[in-house]
C-alpha cells in the first residue's frame, strides 16, 4: 500500500479522569475503505472530532495526506480535501437542497469573499451541484428546503455535499443512522461505487454495511484500539465477539 491518506499517531485525549482516546494509532490507505466500530462510549465520536479538527488531542499527531494537521482548524482541513458527513443530519435547513450543495461546491475554491456576483449565477457550481444531487438519488428535490427533507434524504444530501467537493477523503460518522432499510442499501451501494476512488473512514453501527464496504476494520473499545484487521479477522476475534459484536455478528 502506498502512503496512507490518514494516519493517527498515538492520539491521546482525556476529559478529566475519563480517558476517551487511549494511545490510538491506525491508518487509512490511499484507496481504502476503513470502518471504525465499537460499543457506545468507546470514543468513536471523539476520535472523529479529532480527525476533523473540532477537537484537539492532548497528545499525538493527525497526519492527513502526508501533512501534520494536528494544529489546523476545521475549515483548513476541509480545504485540504477532508469532507465530513456528520452523525446527526447536519445541513443548512434554511437553504434549498440545491443551494446546500452549491455552497459545498463553492467551498472548494476556499473563499467566501465574493460580494457582487450572485451565487445563483455561478453556473459551473450549479451544474456540479445538480449532478451530485442526481448521483445520490435526489434529482427532482432541488428546490425543497433542506430542513423539510425526510431524514434519509438529508443523509443523502449530506453525502452529495461531500461528494461535490471531490474530496481526497470522506469521513463518515454513522451515515446510515436512522435511515430505513431500503435507503441504507441504496447509500451503501453508492459508497461501494466509490471504492477505489475516494478513501473513507466510516463509523457505523450497521454491521451489514460495515462488512459490505470495509477493506479493514478497526475496533475501538474503552478508547483504545482492540484490533485492526480484515472483516474475517474481526469476525474470528474472540475478544471482539464478546465485547461488542455479540449476537449482531452475521
Amino acid at each position, binding site marked *: 500500500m502506498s502512503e496512507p491518506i490518514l494516519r493517527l499517531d498515538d492520539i491521546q485525549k482525556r476529559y478529566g479522569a475519563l480517558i476517551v482516546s487511549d494511545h490510538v494509532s491506525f491508518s487509512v490507505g490511499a484507496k481504502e475503505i476503513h470502518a471504525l466500530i465499537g460499543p457506545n462510549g468507546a470514543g468513536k465520536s471523539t476520535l472523529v472530532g479529532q480527525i476533523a479538527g473540532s477537537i484537539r488531542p492532548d497528545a499525538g499527531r493527525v497526519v492527513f495526506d502526508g501533512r501534520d494537521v494536528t494544529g489546523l482548524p476545521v*475549515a483548513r482541513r*476541509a480545504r485540504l480535501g477532508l469532507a465530513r458527513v456528520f452523525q446527526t443530519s447536519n445541513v443548512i435547513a434554511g437553504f434549498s437542497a440545491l443551494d446546500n450543495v452549491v455552497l459545498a461546491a*463553492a467551498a472548494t475554491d476556499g473563499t467566501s*469573499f465574493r460580494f*457582487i*456576483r450572485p451565487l445563483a449565477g455561478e453556473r459551473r457550481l450549479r451544474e456540479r451541484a445538480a449532478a451530485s444531487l442526481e448521483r445520490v438519488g435526489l434529482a427532482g428535490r432541488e428546490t425543497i428546503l433542506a430542513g423539510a427533507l425526510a431524514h434519509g434524504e438529508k443523509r443523502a444530501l449530506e453525502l452529495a455535499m461531500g461528494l461535490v467537493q471531490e474530496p481526497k477523503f470522506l469521513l463518515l460518522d454513522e451515515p446510515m443512522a436512522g435511515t430505513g432499510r431500503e435507503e441504507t442499501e441504496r447509500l451503501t451501494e453508492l459508497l461501494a461505487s466509490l471504492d477505489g476512488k475516494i478513501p473513507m473512514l466510516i463509523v457505523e453501527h450497521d454491521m451489514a454495511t460495515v462488512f459490505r464496504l470495509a477493506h479493514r476494520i478497526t475496533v475501538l473499545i474503552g478508547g483504545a484500539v482492540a484490533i485492526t484487521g480484515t472483516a474475517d479477522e474481526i469476525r474470528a476475534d474472540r475478544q471482539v465477539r464478546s465485547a461488542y459484536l455479540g449476537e449482531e455478528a452475521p
Partner: protein
Amino acid sequence: MTSPAPRSLPARLVALLTHPVTAIAAIALVVAAGQILDQGFWVTLATRAAILGLAALSLGFILGQGGLVSFGHAAPFGIGAYVVLIAGEAGVRDVLVLLPLAFLGSALFALPTGALALRTRGVYFIMITLAFAQMGYFVFSALSAYGGDDGMSIAGRATLLGARVFRSDGALAWLSIAVLAAASLFLHRTVGARFGHVLRAARDNEARTAALGFSVFRTRLAATMIAAGIAGLAGALMAEQTGFVSPSLMNWHRSGELIVMVVLGGSRRLSGAVLGAIVVVLVEEFLGEATEYWKFGLGLLILAVVATRVVDLPRLLGRRA
C-alpha cells in the same frame, strides 16, 4: 434567487412595501417635495431618516444575515461622526476624503473589537459589543481637545472638490440618499452573492459551514467591518447634518434604537431596516411633539409588531417570508 411571484393583492402590497427601492424612493420623494414646496423641515426630517436608515441597514446586515446581535453599533456610528470633527479641525473638509476616512476609521475600530467579540456567542456577544461601545463612549468623553463630555461643533459643512455645495440642506439630503442607495445596492448584491450565502449558512449552522471549508470567523469579521464602515458613513453624515458631535452619539441608547429599527422592519429582510428607521423617526417626531411620553407609544408599536410577527403577517397575507 427568484422568489415566487406574489399573487393576491395584499401580498402584492406587502411585496411593494418591502421592496428595497420603496423606502429609499419615499425618502427621496419627501426631499423633492420639501424642496419644491419650500418646506425645510421635511428635508431635514427626510435626511435624518436616510442617515438613521443607513445605520440601521448596516446593523440589519450583520444582525439579520449573520445572526450577530451587536448591541454596540452606536460605536462605529459615533466614530464616523468624530472622524468628521477631528478631520475638520485638521483642515480636511472635502466630502470625497471625509466619507472614505469615516468608513475606514469605523471599519478599523471593528477589526480588533470584532475579532475579540466574535470569539463569544449569544448573550456574551451582546454584552461584549455593548462593553466596547461604552469604552468608546468614555474614550471620546475624555477627549477634552474635542469637547469632552459636552461635544463640539464641527468646523463647517463639508465641501465637494472645494465647492461649498453642502451649505444647502437640500444638497446634503441628496448626498445622504445617494450614500444610502449605494450602500443598499451593495449590500443587496452581497446578500445574493457567495459572501451572503456563507454568512447565512454560518448563522443557521456554524459547524456545518466550517466543515465545508469556509472560515466562519473571517467571514463574520469581514461582515462586521463592512457594517461598521457603513455605520461610520452614517455617523459622518449625521455630523454634517447637525453640525455638532458629542459622545452621546455613541450612547448605548442609540445602539438599542438601531436594534429597534431593524426588528421593526423585520430582521430577515435587508430592506426592513430602512423602513423601520423611517417609522421610528416619524414616531419620534410627531408623537414626540404631541406628548413627552412618546416612547410609550413606540413601546406599544414594538409590542404590536412583535406580536403580529408571531402570527407571521406575510404568511397570513398569502406569501412566505
